[in-house]
């Protein structure tokens, strides 16, 4: 077993999630399966392969595109605020932030 119940609770706390008992077990199993699979990948010999962080990266486009510094107005705030829970225009509103 790669992932313990405590690992799941720790990650859930970081993400500010409350999980019930059956969810804890579900996610534990899923995360465990992922790490077991990673172990399998680790068996491959990649000593002559450059580490890659992004699947988009290729020899043809090794670097990210850049954008010119020109303002383009989007004007979506109203539409988005209308769909946001508990918004009070012109602000988004969330339950009082608790310092942690």
């Amino acid at each position, binding site marked *: 077993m790669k992932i313990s119940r405590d690992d799941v609770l720790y990650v859930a706390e*970081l*993400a*500010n999630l409350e999980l019930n008992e059956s969810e804890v077990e579900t996610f534990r199993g899923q995360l465990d399966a992922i790490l077991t699979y990673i172990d399998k990948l680790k068996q491959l010999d990649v000593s002559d392969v450059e580490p890659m*962080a*992004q*699947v*988009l*990266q290729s020899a043809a*486009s*090794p*670097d*990210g*595109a*850049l*954008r*010119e*510094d*020109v*303002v*383009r*107005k*989007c*004007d*979506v*705030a109203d539409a*988005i*605020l209308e769909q946001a829970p*508990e918004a*009070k225009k*012109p*602000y*988004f*509103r*969330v*339950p*009082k*932030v*608790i*310092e*942690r």
Partner: protein
Amino acid sequence: MERTSIRTVEGAGHIPAEVRANYESVIGLEVHVQLATATKAFCACSTRFGDPPNTNTCPVCLGLPGALPVLNKRALELATRAALALHCTVQERSRFARKNYFYPDLAKGYQISQFELPLATGGWLEIESGESKKRIGITRVHMEEDAAKNLHEGFAHADRYSHIDFNRAGVPLIEIVGEPDLRAPEEAYACLTNLKQALEYTSVSDCNMEEGSLRCDANVSVRPRGAEKFGTKVEVKNLNSFRYLQHALEYEIERQIGALEAGETVVQETRLWNVSAGRTESMRSKEFAHDYRYFPEPDLLPVRIAENWKEEIQRAMPELPDAKRARFVHVYGLTQDEAVVLTDSQQYADYFEAVVKHGADPRQTAGWMQRLSHLAEKTAELSEIIADKYGNVTAAHFAEMVGLVKDGTITATNARAVLAKMFETGKPAAEIIASEGLSPITDEEGVESICRGVLAKNPENVAKYRAGNEGVFKFFVGQVMRETRGRANPQTVNDILKRLLQRS
């Protein structure tokens, strides 16, 4: 999630100097700087300060699913310029990473930052430390985006809700991490001053601390003097003015010494400078809050600074404050102190050079510019930009005034008044001298008769002088200058008075 209790050490601020002398403080600064771009780091929304809430937002900076970031070229250029100005090695390739934490100011649930492969590493900044210069190491310079602004006060139901303005979310920042090379609050102050100056000179940022363009945190620890090992460090946040930086560091150093003297240990934590209470307060427990689970940002490809672009940015770099100071001393024969004052800002230095170009004597210009600054400070708000300090005084008029003092067209005493008038009205010195009747009295006999009159009116003081009280001499000079409304040459007055007092 419990809030760590606020703990302060009794008596902080009252550590006796002899106890303090047994300890050495170790300080490193972390400075966040807003880059002077028109748009945000990863979307085309405006970065303008003070716009109505949430008007400068879009799917990217609101973190809507599927929206993809594209890096601002200008932000990358300014970050590179800052790194080069701080003598860092700019990496050809760097990489963005996600810094994960849960807080409402972060719509995506992560901040796009840089972690393993920062933009630049290994630079330095010079400060004056007593008589000598000291190099403060720069660990790294990396790019990141700003978070949104949470507003807690001044709303209905403020007890239940936080209000969020995303205008600031996604604004491009650099974080400059300094080495723990500073040993006193004064050094930290000097370091931040020089850093701000370098960033202003290079137009990387407006460095407006009130608007949050420049924010400073400090890592502070103390250790017994002579010890090799660092003490436990505490991170102090919210040092958003030079004064707060110095006060907070002084407080925190005493607090830590107080704890050690009392046999306690310093807890590694983040503390917040409470401006109104004048103390640092514990903020959150570090070990928990700091598990950010960084990983490479999958939505952005690596950043590449091509060698020729880097060279172009280096070539376009304006003269930096250090180099300017050295040149002012070398070329204009100024003292180091004069050079420091004149290079305080680029506009100030440019004004000086413009005046000198009009033919004024450099050293005299330096002196008169300081006098003009004192005048300006009386009328101008500190926050106003230096350029405003001169009111209507053009460099040509200023140079003319310096020349008039030098060739004796006006006495130094009256030049102050003329300068004040120039500052108020923008008129040239010669015009003010003529209209106010401030031309010096060149007729030596006229001055002598005024001197005789002053002595005749003050026989007791003449007696005192002759009895050996040389202090009253200044009184005679003052009286003559008053009667001539400052138009007599002080040296001439001195000579005449000495002669008259000796004779009889």
